[in-house]
């Protein structure tokens, strides 16, 4: 009977080899895929054991820190100042998950280095400690911006044009990030309106149209176009604000007074393809290259509600005249509009916006610096300078006088998107930058659903922009 016993042992050896193979598959071969499985909460639980790095403003104030709990687990705690930055920095809790910079820079904040370095650290008995993150965010600017919105729904984004550093990112209403530890917050305040809300841009979009007009060489600031009202655009009459008649006027005047009929004609003359091309160059149609989670950003562009997607850059079938003045189905984020004016301010070069400045280790050494990076040259420097000149007139003597600062020249453009004409509900906008010769700040300000006679961009958004600029240029 010994021969069959040996064979039986052979079969059992095979069975055990299969067990070993399966264990290897689960624990080593396919382990990464299992670790990344959405159902697997372990990696996040593991990370609660790590002293997570601190998040700071650009001048070093602490926004988020790790506090040790009883069972040697760490929990995120946001400082009072941290609340100002709720949307930008996000949150990190076992219960509510992870968002914002906490999510985007999770590897850095949890001190994840390459595998080899970690093994050496472990051998030396060093506990894994997170690196801290220094942002570009400005506590003063953020505070002023938030206060200026007075709790109304809206958003403000301010960028350094030459570097793309995001200095202010406010979304209102905001929330207390510490509250997310114990209960999942209602969805609405969590939305970062700066990157996730699509709004009609109104006349601020005329900056894009003007850029396309000047840079294509078909127009210059002095080209005259008829500013009479109404005119037929795509078979429907289009009026100026209050149906004002302007006669033949140069483009500079048309921008200063935000003359709809002129810019609609310009856009029609440029055509869909050219307009689409310049929009694409400004970054419309794709997620912004911001260091922020993709799931918390959306592109800007002409949105087809029926097909639930943004139209491609050929813009086939759109009423291009109305796109030229910010109507049609345009849906843009405040971040996108801030990027548009920052590009004009930076001599026509679009920089990638970034919230984080550098990663610093426990000993204060800079581990990683986020360098300014050019995204694309959108237009020639001379076109940008012409456009700057035109936009400065808007603040000097046009619809944007509310944003004028003493001693500092400001360039800008107002916008008022009509949400509900009968009830006079508007979406006021102001986009602009300052100082004129050496722009240091470009910004976009918008508010949702403002009612009444004084609900235009010039009346509501421009004064807010003024306050924020004043603070940031101090």
């Amino acid at each position, binding site marked *: 009977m010994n021969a*069959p016993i040996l064979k039986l042992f052979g079969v*059992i050896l095979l069975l055990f080899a299969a067990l070993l193979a399966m*264990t290897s598959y689960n*624990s080593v071969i396919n382990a990464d895929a299992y670790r990344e499985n959405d*159902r*697997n909460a372990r990696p996040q639980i593991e990370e609660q054991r790590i002293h997570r790095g601190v998040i700071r403003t650009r001048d070093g104030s602490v926004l988020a820190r790790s506090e040790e709990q009883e069972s040697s687990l760490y929990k995120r705690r946001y400082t009072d100042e941290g609340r100002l930055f709720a949307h930008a920095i996000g949150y990190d809790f*076992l219960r509510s998950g992870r968002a914002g910079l906490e999510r985007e820079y999770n590897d850095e904040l949890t001190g994840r280095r390459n595998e080899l370095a970690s093994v050496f650290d472990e051998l030396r008995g060093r506990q894994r400690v997170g690196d801290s993150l220094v942002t570009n965010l400005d506590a003063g600017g953020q505070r002023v911006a938030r206060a200026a919105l007075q709790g109304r729904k809206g958003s403000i984004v301010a960028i350094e044009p030459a570097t793309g550093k995001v200095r202010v990112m406010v979304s209102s209403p905001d929330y207390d990030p510490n509250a997310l530890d114990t209960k999942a917050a209602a969805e609405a305040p969590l939305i970062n309106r700066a990157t996730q809300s699509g709004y009609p841009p109104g006349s601020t979009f005329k900056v894009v149209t003007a850029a396309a007009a000047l840079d294509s060489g078909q127009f210059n600031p002095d080209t005259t176009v008829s500013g009479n009202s109404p005119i037929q655009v795509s078979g429907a009459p289009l009026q100026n604000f209050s149906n004002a008649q302007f006669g033949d006027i140069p483009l500079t005047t048309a921008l200063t007074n935000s003359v709809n009929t002129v810019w609609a004609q310009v856009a029609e003359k440029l055509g869909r393809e050219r307009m689409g091309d310049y929009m694409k160059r400004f970054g419309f149609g794709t997620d912004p290259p911001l260091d922020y989670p993709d799931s918390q950003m959306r592109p800007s562009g002409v949105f087809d509600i029926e097909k639930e997607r943004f139209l491609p850059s050929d813009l086939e079938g759109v009423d291009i005249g109305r796109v030229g003045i910010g109507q049609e189905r345009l849906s843009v984020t405040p971040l996108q509009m801030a990027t548009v004016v920052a590009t004009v301010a930076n001599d026509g070069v679009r920089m990638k916006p970034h919230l984080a400045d550098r990663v610093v280790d426990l000993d204060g050494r800079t581990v990683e610096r986020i360098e300014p990076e050019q995204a694309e040259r959108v237009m020639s420097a001379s076109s940008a300078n012409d456009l700057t000149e035109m936009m400065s007139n808007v603040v000097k003597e046009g619809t944007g006088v509310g944003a004028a600062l003493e001693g500092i020249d400001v360039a800008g453009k107002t916008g008022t998107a009509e949400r509900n004409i009968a009830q006079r509900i508007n979406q006021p906008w102001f986009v602009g930058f300052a100082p004129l010769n050496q722009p240091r700040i470009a910004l976009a300000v918008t508010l949702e659903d403002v009612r009444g006679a004084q609900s235009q961009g010039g009346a509501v958004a421009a004064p807010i922009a003024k306050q924020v600029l004043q603070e940031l240029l101090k």
Partner: protein
Amino acid sequence: MNERNRELFALIPASLLVTAGFTAVFIQRDDVLSNLSLTYGLIFLALCLGAHVVLRFTLPHADPYLFPLVAVLACFGLVMLYRLDEDLARDQAQWFVVGLLCFAGTIVALRSDHRVLERYRYSIALVGIALLLLPRLGSPVNGAYLSFHLGPIAFQPAELAKIAIVIFLASYLRDTRQVLVVGARRFMGITFPPLKHLGPLLAVWGTAMVLLFVIQDLGSSVMFFGAFLALVYVATNRISFVLIGLGLFALGARVLYALRPTIENRVSAWLHPFDDKLYDQEIGGSYQIAQSIFSQADGGLFGQGFGQAVIKLGDAPPILPAAHTDFIYAVITNELGLLGGAAVLLVYLLIIERGFKTAMIATDSFSKLLATGLTAVLALQVFVIVGGVTKLIPLTGVTLPFISYGGSSIVANFILLALLLLVSDRARREAQVR
């Protein structure tokens, strides 16, 4: 060096292992080195020495490696349980003592000649089947009738029944193996055993089917039936009998699969562990198997270290359910990595190798078959649970011998070990005389 001295030396690393294990858990827990770990190590060593002395006097020639190998597994199980829950470990330690007493009792009772068991084979078979049917009196757990409550003690009779059934089969097949082979006829290229002797074999098949249908315990039935086929094969050296048996078992399992939702659930949870619907399903879903795989993935090659696996957080229900019983292999892989899992499998393989070796040097057919059957049933039990936990086969709940928490499991497996050592002692003594 004679067998017993070799055994004695082999027990030292086992005790060192338990001391080191407890030390690791203590350090992880409190950052202090408690001399309690040394105490536990000493108690464990004392218990093993006690068993060793029994062996020295009763079975001087028995295999010297079996007991130390089992001691390694048992101490490993104790440390693992201690890390999961101190109370469980204390319980288990008591059961460990009970198990050793039963171990010694079995040896003392049968030391003159274990072949007396043959005389009681039908009584033993009846007791085995009765044990299996006992839990039917209680209420099902997760759709299967697994345990029987005797006062405060939950008792899993399948563990003891497996020994009874192996004894019966070894004895029965010793008698009939010749006729099964001689009377066999070939039909359509397959060798069939004679009809007259087919009856009892069909009865075994029927019993496995009844088990399957009545107690709805797929794991135990696979174990029993596998051991049965292994014994039939070793007794007759006819692979065709095994194939016929497998076919019949598959047939029964297929019918049950169509009839019982429990089994169908397990199979779909096995095939699609991350399916949203199955994962969220409260009863019989794939949550357990998915979490088991996540724990193993968390382990990697070297593991997270003793006491580092995430089993539960706060007062919430555990992330990995049944960590101390069915899923203890997942915890081992999580904390000690692929290497730890492989080490455990290797220890089992060494025990199995010693078991089969014993069977091969035994001179009488009953002893050969008994050692083969006991070894095979142990091997299959490891295969069924580790295979289930690693998603090699559908998950069915049986314990991991000597490691999982569970009194009946510890006691039954120590009795199994006692029988193996009894066979071994006689075989080696006779080998020396010759």
